């Protein structure tokens, strides 16, 4: 069966510090991968998605970036965090095609102070 892992689960970072959130998927090949952000009590904002190694689509311009160095690895990064970057970050995967569903990791709580 397929599983998705993301880490760290929680982190508190000062403004201006870098960020790296990592996500890996097991049990499948060539998944579509996603990073979502969710502000407290709000909806899901798609940040990046990837349909293959090295292929990244950005949905919202901001100081975050994403990379996919391996087929089942997706990394969310920032060189300098802003207060507004605080939120709940969710990695997710799906198989290609419109008939498939999306599966979320357990999320990472980021607080920028």
């Amino acid at each position, binding site marked *: 069966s397929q599983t998705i892992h993301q880490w760290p689960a929680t982190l508190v970072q000062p403004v201006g510090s870098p960020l790296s959130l990592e996500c890996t998927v097991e049990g499948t090949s060539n998944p579509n991968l996603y990073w979502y952000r969710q502000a407290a009590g709000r*909806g899901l904002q798609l940040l990046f998605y990837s349909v293959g190694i090295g292929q990244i689509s950005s949905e919202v311009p901001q100081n975050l970036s994403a990379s996919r160095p391996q087929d089942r690895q997706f990394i969310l990064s920032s060189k300098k965090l802003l207060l507004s970057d605080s939120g709940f970050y969710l990695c997710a995967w799906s198989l290609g095609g*419109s008939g498939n569903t999306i599966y979320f990791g357990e999320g990472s709580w980021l607080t920028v102070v």
Partner: protein
Amino acid sequence: GQQVMQIPQYQHVQEGEDFTTYCNSSTTLSNIQWYKQRPGGHPVFLIQLVKSGEVKKQKRLTFQFGEAKKNSSLHITATQTTDVGTYFCAGPQNYGQNFVFGPGTRLSVLP
């Protein structure tokens, strides 16, 4: 671009009352999916509807896909405290490369 809306944004019910959330897309969907997110948790897939007018049931939950495949509803009969959470609908975009989520309906159930 494609937009998905949900109403209501919040719903407070007494335990045992029924609850319904509605989802509307600006474009026709090939399918619609529903997810539940418990407080502090991550969204979990509930169900997918594909056919026009389709109705599916999961115990006390009834899901419906509109005839025009642009709207959907989730109805919970006799809510329980375990139903608390935010319910999201979502539709595929860009031939399934990504998904558009509605803003969610947050359900509170008072014991």
